[in-house]
Structures are given as C-alpha cells and as structure tokens.
C-alpha cells in the first residue's frame, strides 16, 4: 500500500514478461516435462529448468532495455481486428508474389513510395514496419528527412497507399480505441 504506483506496475510488467518468456522457452526447448512428471524432479530436469529460468530472466532484462513498458492499455478488439486483417492479407501477399514469380511475363512495376505516417516513432512504428513488410506488394526501407516512411512497392499500379492507410488506421486503434467510422 505504501509503495508508489509506478513500482507496482513495473513489477507487474516484469512478472508478465518473465512468465511469457519462460512459457515460450518451455514450448520450444521442451525439457521432457511429460516423462519427468512420473519420475519426479531429477537432477537433469532441475538443471534444465535452471537454464530456462535464467534465460527468461535475461530475456526479460533485454526486453525492458529495448522495449520499455508504455503507459496505456491495448484495445483487444482492435488488436483482434488487426490480427485477422494481417492474417488474411499475408495470405494474399504470398499468393500475389508467387503468381508474379511463376508468370512467364514477370508482371512487375516496382517503384518507391513515401508514406507520411501518424504513428509515433518507436515501438508502434517498428510494429507497423514489420506488419507491412508482409502485406501485399509493400516493403519498408526506412524513413526520409521529413519523417515519412519510405516503401518499396512491387507493383505501383496496385492501390498500395490505400492499403497502407488502412493498415495504419487499424494499428492506431489498437492503442487509442475508436471504431471504423472515425477516420
């Protein structure tokens, strides 16, 4: 009760991230937990788990350095909409690029596009870059002197800028809420 509010939320962030990293480690390294349950805690299992616990601590520390917790909450409905949109569009992107690669005429019209974004620099912009790099026909290559995002496009005849604007609007709502009609 006497602790400042900031310390509480930092502890929450640390616990949440550490649990997520340790869960991920259990999934990927999978130190034979199912067999071990029958045998009890052997030295082997204890040694394995110790490595995992320490790895999760290290990962948490690095993530706090590189990705400091930001105040405010995520709007889960908006996040789900973004995820669904991303899932579908990344399928479209894969089919689109495969079609072009196999087409004997190689239908490409590559070119550059500048996209003035409203997203603040940092995590949100990095996430936007990662998402749009898997969207149909767009590949982020950097930022120009006027703080606009630079994109390389596979086919300038496609409505690339409109697609990016839609992705951006979906992304904005994850942090700030709002519905489809507010832009």
């Amino acid at each position, binding site marked *: 009760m006497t602790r400042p509010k900031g310390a509480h939320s930092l502890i929450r962030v640390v616990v949440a991230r550490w649990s997520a990293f340790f869960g991920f480690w259990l999934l990927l390294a999978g130190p034979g937990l199912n067999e071990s349950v029958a045998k009890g805690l052997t030295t082997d299992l204890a040694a394995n788990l110790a490595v995992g616990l320490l790895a999760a601590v290290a990962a948490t520390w690095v993530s706090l350095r590189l990705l400091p917790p930001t105040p405010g909450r995520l709007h889960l409905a908006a996040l789900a909409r973004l995820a669904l949109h991303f899932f579908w569009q990344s*399928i479209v992107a894969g089919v689109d690029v495969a079609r072009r690669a196999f087409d004997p005429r190689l239908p*490409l019209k590559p070119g550059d596009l500048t996209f003035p974004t409203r997203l603040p620099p940092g995590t949100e912009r990095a996430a936007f870059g990662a998402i749009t790099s898997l969207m149909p026909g767009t590949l*982020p290559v950097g930022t120009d002197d006027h703080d606009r995002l630079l994109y390389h496009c596979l086919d300038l005849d496609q409505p690339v800028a409109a697609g990016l604007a839609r992705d951006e609007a979906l992304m904005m709502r994850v942090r700030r809420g709002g519905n489809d009609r507010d832009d």
Partner: protein
Amino acid sequence: MNLALDILTIVAVSLGAIFFLAGTVGLLRFPDTLTRLHALTKADNLGLGLVVLGLLPQVSAPLAALGLLAVWLLALLSGATVGQLLAGTASAPDQDRAETPARHAGASHD
C-alpha cells in the same frame, strides 16, 4: 477422420512447398535486391504457415502443436524484421557507390 486429416496434411504441406519454390523462383527471376526481398519474405511466410498447418493434425500432444505455432510466429517475426533491415541496407547503395571510387582514387595515389 484420420484419412481426412492425413489428406489435409498432404495438401497443406505440398502447397507450402510450392510457396517455398515460388519464393526461390522469385529470388532467381526478380530483377533486383528489393524485389527479391518481396518474394522471399512474403512467399516463405505463407509456405511455412502452410507446412505448420499441415503438421498440426499429426502432433501427439497439444503442447507440441503450440510449439509448432511458436516456431511459425518466431520465423514470422524474424523474417519481417530482417527483411526490413536488408531492405534498408539495400536501398542505400548510392552512398557506397559514391564513396567507393573516391577510396579507390585515394588508394591509387599511395
């Protein structure tokens, strides 16, 4: 039921292989580094997704299924990140080209 799941596995994994092939064909046929990156990131992402989807019905434990999904997610994240970094490096070769002759000129004086 098992037969249906096996058919799903065969179809999805084969489709996945086709998309990996498409990524490689794009890597070979597309004209420059940036267009090749488009082919690799997008086609391989979908290819891996389909392979994982095909393998899901064959796992023995639910945890293994989660593990497969985790692998796909990590590959997705690293592909998207590395793709951007490579694109950033590849799109700024003009500076290097401008510098290289100067360096050569400097070296020839020595």
